[in-house]
Each structure stands twice: as C-alpha cells, then as structure tokens.
C-alpha cells in the first residue's frame, strides 16, 4: 500500500527500523523459573499478564497511560483525516486513507489492552470526551497545508516511534504486544511522510516553500512530544522514577529527545529542509547534536487547553460519538433480540 521508497529501503529511517526495535521485541520467557510474584517478575524483566496479581497503583498507572495512548491514536486521525478529501493525487489519497485507518486500528488494539486491566472502552471514551483523560498535545496543532501530512508522518510518527519502541518491552504483556504490532505500522507512516516531503522538496518553488513551512511549524512540537526535561533532579521523584522501576518506562524523556534529534538531522539534510533551530549543531565531544530549548511555556499552555485545536478536536470527537449513539443502540438492541430468538429456538427444539 505504501509503495515506492524514494531512498534506500535498507537505510533505517526511524527507531522501528533499527536494532533497538529488535532488541526491544526479543523477549525471553522465564516465567517457569521466576514464578508468579509481581516483584520477582519485574526484577527478572518478565511480563505481567492480566491474570497476575498486581499493585493497584501499577494497574492505575497503566490504565492511564494506555488510555492516553489509545485516545492519541483516535484523536490523531483528525489532523490528517481532514486531508483525505483533498489529497493532491490518487496515490496520495490511497496512502492517506490507509494511514488514518491504521491509526484507528491502533486505537482499537490499545483500548483492548486497557480492557484487560478491567475497564471498558465506553468508560475510557467518556473520560476522553469529558476531558478527564488526555491525548497527546501534538494533535492540538493545526494541519494548514498538504505538506503538514508529510511533516506529521516524518516528525510526529517518527517521534511516536522513538517513544514506543522501548514500550515493546514494557512489563505489562498486552501493552508490550500491542506496541510490537503498532511500531511496525508506524514505521510505514514515517516513511510515507518522508516521501511526501521528498517529493515536495524536489517539486516547484511553491511546493518547496510549503514543505519548509510545515517543518518549521512541526519541528518544535515534535520535540515536545517527549515531555518536559526529566534528567538530573527532575527524574528522581514522581511518575518517572516509579514507571522506570516498574519497567513501564525505559529511557528518560531527554534521552529519547536526543536520539530523535540525532536521527532526524541527517534526514532533514537529505530532504533539503532547514530545521528551525539556530543552536542545532554537531558536538563531536558528546557525539550528539546540540540543540535549542523547547518553548515549555507554550507546551504547558497548549497542554492546559489553550492550543489552536484543543476545542475543535474534542468537539469533533464528541459530535461523531453523539451522532452515532442511535446506531450503537440499534446494534445492541438487535444483538439482544437475536440472542432471545436463538434462546427461544433452542427451547422449541428441546421441547420437540
């Protein structure tokens, strides 16, 4: 579906195409030796399964994280979904439909993973619609031009993969397995985004300008996707330390951000896109790129609800859900009638 590669298909473009993915997905099951105790399983880097006893706080942390992840997939359909009718070629239209469809599928896997922790999808959706649970703040930015579909694939899916590859070895089994599947598909998403930008950068002057403008607008929000700085003192308390101890989180936000920058800068050079950061330069001593500071004030402002699209995204989601209520009720009513009919049929047969 995603078609031709504009650059060497053997060259890794994102974290799901590197050894990190293979390492994260290689899981050695030692449960027979370790037993069923939660702490022992965590210490031995084994997977916790739904039937296992687990601390309430572990369960709650996972529900919150998996739900937020599922909501992000579903809300994340909107920024690109609104370009399906406008995609500039039929090939692009087909790829975009398939991509948005994949995101819906990711949402479903993740809601299912959350359901193994004893909560149902309906309840999670209610929490999303009521603003009680969040989704990734990146989707509160608008998609202004066709090039934004490229920038989202390249940068946003790219950053998401960087975040998600370590989750392939998350201690909670159903989440880890969902991530293994999701990361493979995300890798295609990132490639098609790169390809959109590649074509634009080799197109007309206005196409190049469109691509550069999109990269200018999405670069910093993509870096913010790794969350606020959490190395040094910041990492010692709170959620981060606990999630690290539980094997839910594997790397600090800053580590992942650095890896992402290091991976993207050479790709930007290949594309011919100038990343909008005057402080971006290779540091031979560190063996990494130095880069500027994310505008964290803006990050917090958007996270608190004051971004270009916060209201629109939730309103869209709620409207679709409310407009569909009568359909879901009908499906339930029909299923109930069918169950009754089958029961009556069986009674008739056993009476006969």
């Amino acid at each position, binding site marked *: 579906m995603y078609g031709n590669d504009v650059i060497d298909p053997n060259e890794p473009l994102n974290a799901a195409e590197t050894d990190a993915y293979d390492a994260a997905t290689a899981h050695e099951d030692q449960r027979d030796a370790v037993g069923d105790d939660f702490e022992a399983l965590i210490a031995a880097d084994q997977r916790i399964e739904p039937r296992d006893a687990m601390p309430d706080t572990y369960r709650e942390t996972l529900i919150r994280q998996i739900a937020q992840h599922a909501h992000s997939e579903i809300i994340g359909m909107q920024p690109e979904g609104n370009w399906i009718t*406008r995609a500039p*070629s039929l090939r692009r239209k087909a790829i975009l*439909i398939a991509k948005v469809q994949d995101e819906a599928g990711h*949402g*479903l896997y993740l809601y299912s993973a959350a359901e193994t922790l004893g909560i149902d999808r309906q309840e999670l959706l209610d929490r999303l619609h009521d603003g009680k649970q969040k989704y990734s703040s990146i989707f509160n930015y608008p998609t202004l031009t066709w090039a934004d579909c490229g920038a989202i694939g390249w940068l946003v899916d790219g950053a998401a993969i960087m975040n998600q590859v370590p989750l392939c070895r998350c201690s909670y089994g159903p989440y880890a397995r969902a991530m293994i599947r999701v990361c493979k598909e995300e890798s295609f998403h990132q490639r098609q985004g790169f390809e959109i930008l590649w074509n634009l950068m080799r197109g007309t002057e206005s196409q190049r300008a469109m691509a550069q403008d999109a990269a200018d607008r999405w670069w910093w929000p993509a870096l913010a996707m790794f969350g606020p700085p959490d190395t040094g003192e910041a990492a010692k308390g709170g959620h981060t330390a606990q999630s690290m101890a539980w094997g839910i989180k594997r790397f600090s936000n800053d580590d992942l951000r650095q890896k992402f920058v290091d991976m993207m800068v050479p790709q930007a050079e290949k594309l011919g896109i100038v990343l909008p950061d005057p402080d971006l330069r290779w540091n031979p001593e560190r063996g990494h790129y130095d880069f500027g500071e994310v505008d964290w004030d803006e990050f917090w402002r958007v996270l608190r609800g004051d971004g270009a699209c916060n209201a629109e995204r939730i309103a869209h989601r709620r409207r679709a859900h409310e407009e*569909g209520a009568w359909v879901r009720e009908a499906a339930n009513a*029909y299923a109930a009638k069918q169950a009754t009919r089958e029961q009556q049929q069986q009674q008739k047969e056993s009476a006969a």
Partner: protein
Amino acid sequence: MSDHVTSAAPSASESAERESLPGAAENTGAAPGAKPYATYLLGLADDAMVYAQRLGEWMTNAPQIEEDMALGNIALDLLGQARGLYPYIGSIDGTGRGEDDYAMLRDERRWHNVHLVEQERGDFADEMARLLWFSAYQVELHTALTASADDVVAGVAGKALKEVRYHLDHASLWVVRLGDGTEESHRRMQAALEHVLPHLAELFDHDEASVLAADLEVGVLPSTLHDAVVARVARVVEQATLTLPDGSRWRSRGGRAGIHSRPMGSLLAEMQHIARSHPGATW
C-alpha cells in the same frame, strides 16, 4: 486549443481540453489504438471514484471506530477500482492520460458518474441505504463483466467482485441491524430507503456508450442488471422488517452524459483544488 487537429502529441491536459463532451462518445475514438468504449468505462471508473470520495468523508465521523475502519476499507477498494481503470482508459481513448489527469483535472461536465454516488453524505442510515443499492448493483455488474471481451475489463471486474461482495455483506448487516434494532433506527432506516429512491433508476438507464459497449460484448446493458439487483436488495429489506418503497415523483438522470446535481461541483472543488493550484506539480 485551435490547432488540435494537426497536433501530433498533445499533452494530457490539452487532450482533456479538447475531449468532446459526454454524449458524443463515438467522436473520441479517432486516435490510433483507440477503442470506442472508453466512455463506458469512464462511467464505471467515475462511479467508483466519486463514491470513494464520499466514503472517505466518514473517516473520523463514523458511529464507532470499527466503522471508521470499515468505511475506509470500502473507500480504498473503490479507489483501487477507479485507479485500475483510468490508465487503461487513457490508453484506449487516444489521450494517454493518467489517473490524476482524470481525477484531478477534469471539469464537472466531463464526469460520467451517476447522481447516486455524488449526493452529500446524510446520516449513517442514508449511507447504508446507498451502499446497499450501489454494492448490490456492483455485484451484478462485475459478475457480468468478468465475461467481458476485453481482458483488462474482465480482470478489473474479477478483482472488484470479491471486494464488492464484502461491501454488500457489510451494508446488508447494517440495514438489518438498523431496521430490526430500535424504533428510532427503524424509522431512520426506512426514511433512508425513501431518500435514496430517486437516484436508483439512473443506474439502469441505457445511453449511447453502454449500448455500444454491450454490442461489442465488452460491457453489459444496465437494464439487464435491474431485476437481480432489486431482488438482492429486497431480500435484505425484508429481513430488516422494512418495506421497499416504490415510485418517486422525480428521478435523477443525465449523470452518464455529464449533467450532474448541485453537490458534484463542491465535491470536485474540494477534491481537485490542491492539484489544480499547482499546475504541473507531482506529489
């Protein structure tokens, strides 16, 4: 565009400009390698293309996430059917046009789809009524076309047949659920069957292009599909405890000749505007 008669190798867009308007199918067949049934195939491709465009609008708007995916799937299948036909049509109508020349650069008067597929998205029941009729029609159509004298057409039909059977199953499932669900869903589904009614007759209308294609045993006469399509729909409607409405005071006509209803212009404007804003660009 005045010297087109002597121009040896017209560009795609020039060819599009000088293409005669629908209804004059025989006039486009002058170029070498040209086959006279291109206009007929364009009708089939345009039906699939325009309906894919409408179904694509459902993504993020469906009643549940599974349905966002299912309608996306159906849109992708129909888009694939159109993409299977356009380049071939370009090779037999003498213009050498590619898929995007047809989809992105054609004006409304040069589209040959029926009105049914261009109508605006109503509620979910409206969409299921349209999908039920259209996919029942496509099942019969593609079954017949697998025997087409043109191998390419037979091949496209063979692949499409598997897809449209699934579309018909999907629509049938929902029409039954909605018809036999709640009072509200029954009412809405019955209303949807009424809404779609004026746009059905056109599926079975003959025009010059379809008569010609049928004569050449490449295509099928639309009227010959009518009874089987109605029988398929009637079975579902009955199971859904609904009634098949009959007779409407008006009916749509003219789509195959490029005479469209009001929503078509807006649909094309949205679909084509990026491509048309950047002449000569590739994506």
